[in-house]
């Protein structure tokens, strides 16, 4: 089995916020069980943009810590398997239309389907929209 990390989980691994520790515990448990960790290439710019928002818009993260978080993000990024958006683009668009989700959400669902992995997300909207047809696990339910 594989666990596909949504951006919401990836970010929780590099900063301290609600349910960060729970996310880490679940990720480590998956690794211990021999599961592969995956994500979609889209998660990197999304995660960086989230750090930028914390630092520059909401100002709840000092800029130097945002930079260090980005370093740690890359450290983890280089160790997980990344699915290129190109490989799942058509299926993602189909899912976006059928489920009325953004293409950003749908890329993760298409990746989950292609790799027969469980999507692990903290994103309730994504989980609720997809749980009947996709293998999805919501952070707060674990």
């Amino acid at each position, binding site marked *: 089995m594989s666990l596909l990390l949504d951006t919401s989980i990836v970010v*929780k691994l590099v900063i301290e916020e609600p349910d960060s520790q729970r996310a880490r515990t679940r990720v*480590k448990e998956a690794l211990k069980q*021999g599961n592969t960790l995956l994500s979609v290439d889209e998660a990197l710019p999304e995660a960086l943009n989230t750090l930028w928002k*914390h630092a520059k818009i909401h100002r709840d993260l000092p800029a130097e810590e945002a930079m260090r978080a980005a370093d740690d993000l890359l450290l983890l990024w280089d160790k997980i398997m990344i699915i290129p958006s190109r490989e799942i683009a058509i299926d993602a668009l189909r899912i976006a239309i059928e489920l009325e989700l953004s293409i950003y959400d749908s890329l993760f669902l298409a990746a989950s389907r292609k790799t027969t992995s469980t999507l692990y997300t903290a994103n309730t909207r994504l989980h609720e929209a997809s749980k009947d047809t996709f293998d999805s696990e919501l952070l707060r339910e674990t």
Partner: protein
Amino acid sequence: MKNTKIEWSEEIRQFIETRINSIELSEAVDEVAKRAEKRTTKIDSTKLIREDRER
């Protein structure tokens, strides 16, 4: 001593690589967690990501 060539099967090689990668990744998660203690934020990132995806 006679030099014996050991042929590892592809499955065993992949299994070992995967396990090593999992252990390294698990250790990296712990290392990052320690450094992340200095990065406590007030706003949940999931909300920020959601804003971007629905724009």
